[in-house]
């Protein structure tokens, strides 16, 4: 059973916009129809000037500021987005869409495969889902923003892969974006980033339940492989200090090593992360989205010059990095800032001191909240 049908079996229906004419992807394939699952918070004002798009990261989804319907956990960015929060839903109309290729209702590997006329083929796309890019994800989001009647977004905000989408939005549709906050991200996926993703993908491929990506035909999911992928990735989201502070060398099994069946706290934590992840995420989706991140290289899309991606940009940027993030280190944010300076764009840049690693963008970081809320206030003064 795939996630999509599993969700329906649970009575879970995602709020979705369907575009019958579909979308042409960077790889040349045309998919129709295009489904974009999304959530909105707050109210669009009469001027339609208060819309903010939140872009989610690799394993995030559209449930940014509410209890997740599947896991029952708080929204993944509820600290940043909500009533009275820096992205205040009492003032802003916040939109968040599940990315193209995702597994929470948007067109992706676990939705029904269609032919070129849009006719359903009675099976999920699975491994046959065409490769997508960050640009494709953004184009799909644009369809949603158009359909919601939003001419120009007041801001586009996202961390990690969400930050890549933010950069792509500002570059592709500069007149549709007033301000942009790319957080803990980069203008390209580095060799190290790609390498870690490949370990995850290989783990999925190596799972006997993967069945060449057609696991639904066998009524199984490659849970072990996907869990290992998640565990590896999770290590890259944390810093050594954060791991030490949280777990140290403590044992789950007892006060002392017995040299048989010992379990360190950190092992137990990772296993938990892995096993809860497979309940909400589709393996083929994981393969598709990690690949989209690997493909991302904004400078390459503009003849090798990152500054060319932002030439004459009217967008106001606020770039944020975290000091202990080694997956998307500050140096990569600084490259973005320098390119924006070279393009004479309006940019703010803050490196926030934190020992929590890449994950810091999702956690309680008062400096992040102050920065985002101050930047949005400053931008609001200059909205025209």
């Amino acid at each position: 059973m795939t996630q999509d049908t599993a969700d329906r079996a649970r009575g879970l229906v995602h709020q979705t916009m369907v575009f019958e004419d579909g979308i042409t992807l960077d790889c040349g394939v045309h998919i129709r129809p295009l489904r974009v699952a999304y959530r909105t918070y707050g109210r669009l004002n009469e001027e339609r000037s208060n819309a903010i798009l939140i872009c989610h990261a690799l394993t995030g989804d559209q449930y940014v500021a509410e209890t997740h319907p599947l896991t029952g956990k708080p929204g993944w960015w509820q600290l940043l987005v909500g009533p009275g929060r820096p992205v205040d839903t009492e003032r802003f109309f916040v939109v968040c869409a599940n990315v193209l290729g995702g597994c929470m209702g948007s067109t992706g590997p676990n939705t029904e495969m269609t032919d070129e006329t849009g006719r359903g083929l009675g099976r999920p796309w699975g491994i046959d889902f065409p490769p997508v890019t960050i640009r494709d994800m953004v184009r799909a989001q644009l369809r949603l923003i158009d359909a919601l009647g939003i001419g120009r977004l007041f801001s586009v905000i996202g961390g990690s892969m969400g930050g890549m989408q933010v950069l792509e939005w500002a570059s592709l549709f500069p007149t549709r974006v007033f301000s942009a906050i790319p957080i803990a991200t980069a203008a390209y996926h580095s060799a190290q980033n790609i390498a870690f993703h490949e370990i995850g993908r290989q783990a999925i491929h190596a799972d006997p339940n993967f069945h060449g990506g057609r696991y639904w035909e066998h009524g199984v999911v490659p849970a072990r492989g996907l869990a290992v992928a998640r565990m590896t990735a999770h290590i890259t989201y944390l810093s050594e200090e954060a791991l030490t502070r949280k777990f140290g060398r403590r044992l789950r099994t007892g006060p002392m090593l017995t040299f048989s069946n010992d379990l360190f706290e950190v092992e137990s934590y990772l296993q938990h992360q892995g096993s809860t992840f497979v309940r909400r995420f589709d393996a083929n989706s994981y393969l598709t989205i990690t690949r989209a991140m690997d493909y991302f290289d904004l400078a390459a899309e503009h003849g090798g010059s990152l500054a060319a991606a932002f030439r004459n940009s009217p967008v106001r940027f606020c770039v944020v990095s975290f000091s202990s993030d080694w997956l998307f280190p500050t140096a990569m944010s600084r490259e973005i800032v320098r390119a924006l300076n070279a393009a004479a764009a309006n940019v703010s840049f803050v490196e926030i001191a934190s020992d929590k690693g890449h994950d810091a963008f999702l956690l309680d970081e008062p400096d992040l909240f102050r920065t985002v809320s101050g930047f949005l206030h400053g931008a609001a003064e200059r909205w025209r």
Partner: protein
Amino acid sequence: MPESPLGGTRSGRPLSDRLDLRLIAEMVEPGSRVLDIGCGDGTLLDILVHEREVDGRGIEIDMGLVTAAVAQGLAVIHGDADSDLAFYPDQAFDYVILSRTLQATERPREVLAQMLRIGRRAIVSFPNFGHWLIRWKLLVTGRMPRTSVLDRPWYDTPNIHLCTIADFFALCEAEGYTVEQWLGVDEAGRKTPWRRNRRLANLFAEQGLFLLTRNPPARGSQGR
């Protein structure tokens, strides 16, 4: 004009009591593009943006101050004068401001050259090491002088390239910069009466404040 998403009220901020910032602000034409290097928490930028309606940007090395400035809605990046100016295109700004920071840069001559590459004009202020009290203290005590402006001991000061007003005039001449305006400024940041006389200013002004252009003036709209 469309309604601002947040109603468009700006948080009131007390105007600076650093009068030298006022003098700098008066040098800047309203509506121009300005880069403030070493902008601190954005006090000058805030004045420029809200009173002179400039398109203002800032660079600051102290992360805490950057966060404070950005949190006020100012366009400030974390960086420093020595390494980050090279990334801006030619003539991107009408004014590039360096207030009380030149003496703390590693290569002040290169920083000035970059300022006049990326901006049509440079505004520079610095503590005048030729002030009589500094000369007197060095003469009498034989120790590195400390004043209210230069208040840190020699081993703990960020000010590694101090100069006098006379030194600065000499550098401008050597580099071919035109001094369009200059002022001697006292400790509180008021204009001093010595501004017509370089030698008196070099003795009695606590700070020098200069408005420079490149000689010959750089080409108009190049590189935009």
